[in-house]
C-alpha cells in the first residue's frame, strides 16, 4: 500500500459572480485513506471537489493527480484519470434501468459491439462488482423504483465501473438513515483499505470521527487545517469548523430590550412524507433580530417557505399577535401588515427573471390601489416608484426599468427584492440566507437594511446556515436541528456552545 499523494491541490481559488467561493485552498489526499472534508454549508467543500472532478475550472493554483500536474478540460477527462464523484443530487435517468444508466456513463469506454451485447456485458460487470463490494442491486431494476440509498449505491457503482480510483462522495450520509450511513461508510472504508483514495465531503462530526483517517477543515473558502481526527478533541474540531468571530466583524453586542411579541409559531409540523418540521416553536419580538442557526437541511427551507407563504404543507400555528394566523392571509393582507419576505432562492421565489424590473417591483404595492384600480395599471406611478427605490437602495446595473430582472447580478437582484419588500416600512422581516452568493459590499448593504428595520421596531427573523452571519446580526439565536428549535441563546452568546448545539442533535 503506497502512501503517495492521490490528489494535491495548492493555492486554488474560484469566484462566482464576484463572490469568492474558494480562496487559496490547499488539499492533499493520499492513496489508501479516507479523507474527510469538513465544514459548514457554503464553506467551499463542494466547489473544491467540483474542481477536482473537472466540473469547474480553477482560477488560480495547481492540481496534481498521482503527483503529475494536470489541467482538466472537463468531467470526462477527470473520469479518464480515475476520478469519480458521487454528487449530493444524483445524476440518474429515472425511467431507465440501473444497467442502462451505467452503460450511458461508460460511453467513452465501451464503444464496440451491439447495444444489447454491451448492455449484457455491463449487467454482468454490475453483478460482479456489486457482489465484490457487498451491494445488493438488481441491474434490471428501474431507478424510479429504488430507494434513495439504493440510488446512491447505483451512483457509486457507476463511478467504480468507470474505473474510478479516487472516489469523492459529496454529503453521502445527508439522505441516509443511521444504519444505511453506517453500511455505506464501512464499504467505502473498504475501498480505501484496498488502496483507493476516498474523499468524504461532510458536515457531520460523527462521520469524521468514526470513519476518516485524515480530516481537512474548510471555512469560508479556505482550508483551515489538516489533521488526524483521533488526535484532537471534538471540541477542538467544532472550534475549527465554526471558527472564531472573524476580525472586524464582532458579534452583535446584545443587551437590547426587545419589544412585545409579534410572531408566535407553535407546533409547526410538516404534513408531507418527510418530517422536515417537527413541532417547531418560536416567539419573535418587535425590535429584535432573531437568528436561526443550524446545519443545512434541518428544516430551515421548510420553515422559511411556511412563513413566507411559499407553498409548503404544514400544520400548526403561525400567529401574528392580535391579527391571526399567517397561513390565512393573502398577499394583500400580508402587505398591509408590513410583512416583508426575502427568500433564499431569488429567481425561484422572489423575482421573475424574464419580466422587467418595473413589473417585479410593482407587485410590492399592487394590492393597495396605489398603482391604479384593477382595470388600469398606472405604469407611470410604478416606474416613478421603482426608479426612486432603485436609487435609494442602490441597485446597480439598471439601464432601464424595462430591462429583464434576470440581467441583474446576484447582489443587485437581492437589493431589488429588498427595495420592493421594504417599499413600506416593514413590521416583520423574514429573511432566508439573505447574503448568500453576495460579495462583501453587497452583504454589508443587505445587513445594514435588516439592522435598520430592527432599529425602527420591526421584528426580524434571519434564517441562515452561515453561523458568522447569525452571530454578527442576531440579538437572540435559536439553533435548529431536525425540524425544531433545540436551543436558544441571547447575545453575547458563546460560539462554541452554539456549535455544540448544532452538531450534537444531528
Amino acid at each position, binding site marked *: 500500500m503506497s502512501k503517495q499523494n492521490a490528489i494535491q491541490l495548492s493555492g486554488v481559488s474560484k469566484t462566482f459572480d464576484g463572490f469568492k467561493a474558494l480562496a487559496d485552498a490547499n488539499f492533499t489526499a493520499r492513496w489508501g485513506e479516507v479523507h474527510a472534508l469538513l465544514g459548514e454549508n457554503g464553506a467551499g467543500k463542494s466547489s473544491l471537489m467540483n474542481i477536482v472532478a473537472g466540473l469547474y475550472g480553477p482560477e488560480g493554483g495547481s492540481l496534481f493527480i498521482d503527483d503529475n500536474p494536470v489541467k482538466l478540460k472537463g468531467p470526462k477527462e477527470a473520469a479518464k484519470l480515475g476520478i469519480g464523484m458521487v454528487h449530493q443530487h444524483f445524476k440518474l435517468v429515472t425511467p431507465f434501468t440501473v444497467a442502462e444508466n451505467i452503460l450511458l456513463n461508460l460511453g467513452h469506454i465501451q464503444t464496440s459491439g451491439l447495444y444489447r451485447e454491451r448492455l449484457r456485458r455491463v449487467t454482468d460487470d454490475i453483478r460482479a462488482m456489486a457482489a465484490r463490494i457487498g451491494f445488493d442491486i438488481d441491474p434490471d431494476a428501474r431507478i424510479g423504483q429504488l430507494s434513495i440509498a439504493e440510488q446512491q449505491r447505483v451512483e457509486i457503482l457507476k463511478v467504480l465501473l468507470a474505473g474510478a480510483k479516487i472516489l469523492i462522495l459529496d454529503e453521502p450520509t445527508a439522505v441516509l438513515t443511521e444504519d444505511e450511513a453506517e453500511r455505506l461508510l464501512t464499504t467505502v472504508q473498504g475501498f480505501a483499505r484496498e488502496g483507493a483514495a476516498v474523499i468524504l465531503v461532510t458536515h457531520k462530526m460523527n462521520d469524521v470521527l468514526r470513519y476518516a483517517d485524515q480530516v481537512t477543515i474548510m471555512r469560508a473558502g479556505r482550508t483551515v487545517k489538516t489533521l488526524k481526527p483521533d488526535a484532537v478533541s471534538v471540541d477542538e474540531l467544532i472550534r475549527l469548523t465554526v471558527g472564531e468571530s472573524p476580525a472586524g466583524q464582532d458579534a452583535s453586542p446584545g443587551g437590547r430590550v426587545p419589544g412585545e411579541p409579534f410572531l408566535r409559531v407553535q407546533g409547526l409540523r410538516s404534513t408531507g412524507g418527510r418530517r422536515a418540521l417537527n413541532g417547531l416553536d418560536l416567539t419573535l419580538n418587535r425590535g429584535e433580530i432573531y437568528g436561526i442557526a443550524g446545519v443545512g437541511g434541518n428544516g430551515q427551507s421548510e420553515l422559511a417557505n411556511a412563513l*413566507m*407563504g*411559499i*407553498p409548503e404543507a404544514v400544520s400548526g400555528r403561525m400567529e401574528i399577535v392580535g391579527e391571526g394566523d399567517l397561513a390565512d392571509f*393573502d*398577499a*394583500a393582507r*400580508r*402587505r398591509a401588515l408590513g410583512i416583508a419576505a426575502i*427568500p433564499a432562492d431569488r*429567481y*425561484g*421565489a*422572489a*423575482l*421573475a*427573471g*424574464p*419580466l422587467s424590473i418595473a*413589473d417585479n417591483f*410593482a*407587485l410590492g404595492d*399592487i*394590492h393597495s390601489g396605489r*398603482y*391604479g*384600480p*384593477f*382595470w*388600469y*395599471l398606472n405604469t407611470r406611478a410604478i416606474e416613478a416608484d421603482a426608479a426612486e427605490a432603485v436609487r435609494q437602495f442602490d441597485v446597480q446595473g439598471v439601464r432601464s426599468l424595462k430591462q*429583464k430582472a434576470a*440581467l441583474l447580478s446576484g447582489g443587485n437582484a437581492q437589493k431589488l427584492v429588498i427595495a420592493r419588500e421594504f417599499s413600506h416600512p416593514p413590521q416583520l422581516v423574514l429573511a432566508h440566507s439573505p447574503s448568500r452568493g453576495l460579495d462583501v459590499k453587497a452583504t454589508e448593504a443587505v445587513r445594514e437594511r435588516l439592522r435598520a428595520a430592527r432599529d425602527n421596531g420591526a421584528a426580524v427573523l434571519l434564517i441562515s446556515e452561515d453561523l458568522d452571519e447569525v452571530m454578527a446580526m442576531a440579538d437572540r439565536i435559536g439553533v435548529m436541528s431536525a425540524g425544531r428549535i433545540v436551543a436558544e441563546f441571547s447575545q453575547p452568546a458563546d460560539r462554541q456552545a452554539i456549535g455544540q448545539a448544532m452538531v450534537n442533535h444531528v
Partner: protein
Amino acid sequence: MSELALRRPLINRRYTLELRQHMAWYWQALILGASLVLGLLVSGAILVAAGVPAGELLNEFVLYTLFDAQSLKSVLFQASPLIMVGLAGCLAFRARFWNLGLEGQMIFGAIGATAITLWDIGSPSLRLPLMILTAMACGLLWAVAPVLLRLKLRVNEIVSTLMLNYIAVNFLLHLMYGPWKDPKDAFPYSPKYESFELLPDLPGGLSLSIPIAIGLAVLVLWFVSISRAGLYLRFVDKSPDVARSVGVPVARTILMAVLFSGALAGLAGLMVAAGQEGRLTHSFYVGYGFSGILIAFLARNNPIAATCAALLIATLFVAGRSLQVFYQIPFAMVQLIQAVLVICVASSDFFIRHRIRRVQGGE
C-alpha cells in the same frame, strides 16, 4: 490554419450554438418576416407542383384576393371569427392553459345563440345583442369544467378540453339531425335565422362582425397589457413558481383568462352562424379550433399580432376557395399551407434563441 478552414467545404466546417440572452425586437421581426416569406415560397412551390400555373398564383393570391374590393371584404369577413378564436388562444395560452377546446366552446356559443332564435326570446330589436351575450356566456360555461378540474384536481386540460369537443360535436349533431332540424327540408341545418337575427352589414358593406372583432382585439390588448390582471398574467406566464410565492393570485388569474378565452370562442361561433351561414349547421366549426391555436402560436400570444395572423389565414381561406373553384385544388391544400407556415415560424424561433458561430480554425 485559416487557409485550411477556407478550403474546407462549407458543410465540414464546425459551428457552435450559443444561447442568446436578448435580441432587439427589429431583428426578431425581421427573422419572423423572413420565415413567413420562406413559408409562402415553399407553399407556392407546392401549389405549382399541384398544377397551378406560376403566373396565375400571384394573380390569384395577391392581386385578386387583396386588391379586389369584393374579395377583400370577404377576407375581412372571414377574418373576424378567426380573430376571435386567435384571441381566445392567446388568452388561454398566456395563462399556460392549453385550451384545445376552442371548437367545443364555439359550438356551444352558436347553440346558445340559436336557442334564442328558436325560442323567440326578446323583442326583435333586442334579439341580436341577446344572442351575442348568450353566445359568450355559453362559450364561457363550456370552459368552466376543464379550468376548475385543472385548478382543483390538476386534471390535464389538454385531455379534458379535447374530450369536451367530442361531447359538443355530438350534441350539435344530435340537435341538427333531431329536434332542431329545419322542417322545410331534410338537411342537418337549423331553420334560417330571421333577418334581424343576422349580423347586419354596416353602411359601406362591411359586416358588423369586423368592428366587433377589432373592438375585442383592443379589449384583449387592454386586458393583457394595461390591466392589473395583465401584470398577474405575465407572472403566471413567465414564472409560475415565482408568481405563487410573491402573492399573485394564480388560480384567479388563470380562471379569468380561460373564461374570457371561452367567451371569445363562443362569440366566434355566433359570428359564423349569424354572420356567414345564417343558421346553425352541422359542420360550421370545422377547422377553427386548429386555426385558433395556430394563430395564437404565430402571434406569440400577442393580440395585435394575432389579428394580423388571422387576416393572413383568412386570405389563405379565401384564396384557397377560389383555387378550389378554378383549379380543382382540394381545400386540404389550404391546411397544408397553414402547416408549412407554422413550421417555418416555429423554426425561426431557433434562430431567435440561438446564435450560430463558426469555430475559428482548430480541430
